[in-house]
């Protein structure tokens, strides 16, 4: 089993426990059933010994998620995860064919497209309904199952592809990452609906993750892991915490909103800042103009993040405790991320 994936799975389990503790009593049972099923499926993706089985588990999970119901129709819920499975199955087949080297490049295309479709990032954004509950929405794929799934698929893909196709795969991930950074951060800033802005902010963070995965050096992998950490243990719980204020359309400009906005923007000393430094260092080692493009993209995070920070409202009671814990964990991980890296053998 991959240590990075196990670490992320444990973090996902911790966030699930936090969501159960800090969520209102009404939706807790619903969350327990749906989240528990998702967590079991995610654990199965990590535990299975081959990538083929991981892809089949993904298909089973997609079926269960689509059949569980929600505001979006069954076909809309199932379509993109199932397309991801078709792309990944074809990619795995092409990676095993004997023949010209171009076949492996087709496999790399299929793997990159499959990862994007499974997670739900550009160009395969899952249709989103702002009124839908978080446990039924595409946030499940982008912030709960997606981080572990993408880690498993990307790490196992490197073992399937030759050096040449592996480089092409990395380049495609960087290209997808840059597009997602721009699309997500501009969307989070400019879109009218704040729930939709939250979703775009996840997409922007995934841009950083894909760039990190694409940089096939240690700093890139470390950056990807740290951004995934901030998605699962930062952005996701803060999004869940903001749902009540979003429903009531409450926006406040208190210090807590500024602090949360700073954490979401990846300002120092949060984990997002450390991830960005690592990403820039990795990009400079590999090809310095890429670092320049990344810096320009990272500047776009600020306006959207301040807006999302305001959407949290004024946290009270359990919710306030949850926000304090999330911010503290993110600052701690930003100041001292080494235990995270050593647990993942990075």
């Amino acid at each position, binding site marked *: 089993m991959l240590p990075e994936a196990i670490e992320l799975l444990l973090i996902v389990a911790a966030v699930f426990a936090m969501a159960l503790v800090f969520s209102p009593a009404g939706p807790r049972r619903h969350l327990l059933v749906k989240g528990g099923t998702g967590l079991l499926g995610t654990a199965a993706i990590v535990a*299975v010994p081959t990538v083929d089985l991981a*892809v089949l588990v993904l298909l089973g999970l997609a079926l269960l998620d689509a059949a569980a119901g929600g505001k979006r129709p069954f*076909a809309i819920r199932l379509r993109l995860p*199932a397309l991801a499975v078709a792309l990944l199955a074809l990619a795995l087949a092409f990676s*095993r064919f004997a023949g010209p080297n171009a076949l492996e490049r087709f496999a790399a295309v299929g793997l990159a497209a499959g990862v994007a479709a499974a997670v739900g990032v550009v160009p395969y954004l899952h249709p989103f309904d702002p009124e839908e509950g978080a446990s039924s929405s595409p946030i499940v794929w982008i912030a709960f199952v997606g981080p572990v799934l993408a880690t498993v698929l990307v790490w196992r893909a490197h073992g399937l592809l030759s050096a040449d196709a592996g480089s092409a795969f990395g380049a495609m991930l960087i290209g997808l990452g840059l597009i997602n950074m721009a699309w997500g951060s501009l969307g989070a800033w400019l879109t009218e609906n704040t729930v939709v802005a939250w979703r775009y902010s996840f997409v922007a963070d995934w841009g950083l993750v894909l760039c990190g995965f694409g940089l096939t050096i240690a700093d890139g992998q470390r950056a990807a892991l740290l951004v995934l950490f901030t998605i699962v243990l930062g952005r996701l719980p803060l999004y869940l915490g903001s749902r009540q204020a979003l429903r009531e359309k409450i926006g406040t400009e208190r210090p807590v909103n500024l602090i949360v906005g700073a954490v979401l923007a990846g300002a120092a000393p949060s984990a997002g800042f450390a991830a960005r430094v690592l990403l820039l260092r990795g990009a400079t080692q590999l090809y310095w103009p890429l670092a320049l493009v990344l810096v320009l993209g990272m500047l776009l995070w600020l306006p959207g993040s301040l807006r999302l920070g305001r959407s949290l409202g004024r946290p009270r009671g359990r919710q306030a405790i949850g926000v304090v814990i999330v911010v503290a964990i993110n600052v701690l991980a930003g100041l001292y991320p080494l235990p995270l890296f050593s647990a993942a053998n990075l």
Partner: protein
Amino acid sequence: MIEGLAGFVAWLGAALVVLSDGRRGLAAGTAVSSLGIAILVLQGSGPVDAAIVAVGGAVATIPGLRSGEGWGLMPAGSTPRLVLSIAVGLLALWIAASITTGGGAALRFAVMSVAGLSGARILSSDSSPVLLAAVGSLALAAAAAAALGGAPPGPWPYAAAAVIAGGSAWLRPRTASAA
């Protein structure tokens, strides 16, 4: 000879799933497709794995055949789907037989054509029975892809695919609600 026929049968089943709108037609497509894949698995991985695929396909077929609904084969306006089925088959045949080398050309053809056609069907339909039938065929093709590496992958991919194919046919998705 048998391998080649089995590959053709697998493609035919996937093409039936693409060309049918009725539950019986979809069930027939799943049955034919799983039969072709089971024969290919029998050749490469042995009788136990082939039996798992066959049982998964059979379980997936029952609810559609018992539904009492029509076959819905090639309804009006399905010419583009027919062209798609033939084009995907020809492309997969060209890659499997001419571009790639080594044994197992029929399995390569079956995996590419069934996965490609199922993926296309998933993208093009909003009907739950159609999507579930396509997902069943896709699961079996994804499991068969595991055998392309050379060594038999063991029974687990086939068992997982059989559970997905069999389970999806019996699934009754909830309609969109205010959840």
